């Protein structure tokens, strides 16, 4: 699985922020505690016209989840 790595500051600022009336950002940390943003094709379409479109320019990176159960 791949996602977009954001800085800790970006994750803290945007966590829970709505980019439209229905959907909000939810960042998750990988095994190295880096914050990842996962966007579906639906999300990308909805974010494109917003002030957060810059997030779409972040390249995709491989994601390794933390081990939980």
């Amino acid at each position: 699985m791949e996602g977009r790595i954001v800085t800790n500051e970006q994750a803290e600022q945007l966590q829970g922020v709505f980019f439209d009336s229905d959907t909000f950002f939810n960042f998750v940390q990988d095994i190295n505690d880096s914050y990842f943003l996962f966007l579906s094709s639906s999300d990308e379409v909805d974010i494109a016209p917003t002030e957060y479109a810059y997030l779409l320019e972040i390249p995709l990176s491989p994601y390794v989840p933390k081990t939980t159960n």
Partner: protein
Amino acid sequence: MSYYPLISIMPKTVAAYDADAQAFITAAVITDVTQQGAINTLVLALKGYSIWTKFKAIYPIVGGTASQHKFNLKDPRDLDVAFRLTYATGFTHSATGMLPNGTSAFGNTFLAGNLLTVSNQAMSYYSRTNTSAAVNMYEVGYIPATIYRNGLGVRSTFRSVANRSVSDIALIAGTGAAILANNLDSTGFYIANRNSNVDNKIHKNGVIVGINTSSIGTPTTSSLNYYISASNSNGTANNFSNRECAFASIGDGLTDTDASNLYTAVQAYQTTLSRQV
């Protein structure tokens, strides 16, 4: 002789939908006639079976977009108090439902656990995806504490609950009353149901597949909201599902007959929409 005068005075035929169905159709801007009819038939069936009033929230997940999927059929206002969904990033919305990515996506229902009685509730989820899970996955629920879980997971490990090592289990859990039923296919319509502290059942496609008569104890009610496609673990989303949701509901406990009737109504609804599994 002209027939135009006669035609002009004939009453016009207007499709009259149930008022609750029409309110949803209007709110969700459902313009497709087949989808409108499916919603109307679903509402009439639930009312005909006398189970409509048992639900707090019904999510028909119809229309194909996030802004349409979010509405609660029981109260289709675009408000938190109406239990309409908001989404975390990671859902793909389409005509067949909403597909969570299993990593970050969940729906917040704004329906708090303490609006229902733990020993009298039912959660349902129509899964269109068959996946196994090496980790815990919840399709509906909340977890106020490790030993007290309140959720439906259609196929998962739940090692922390029951020390299981296989990944083929459906579950509703309380304090000591997990239901563990082998489940090799996570597609289908699931209902996790409680009618009392000692009446815990899992229904899959209208059939009871798990029963637990152990007491769930007397867990305190929780102010945590039910999440869809994940669990609400003390305010943090966890146990993310990757199964496409085509219907979900939360409400009071159902009798066995109620649960069977709910499956009949929901499966007919999905069939009309050509997305049944």
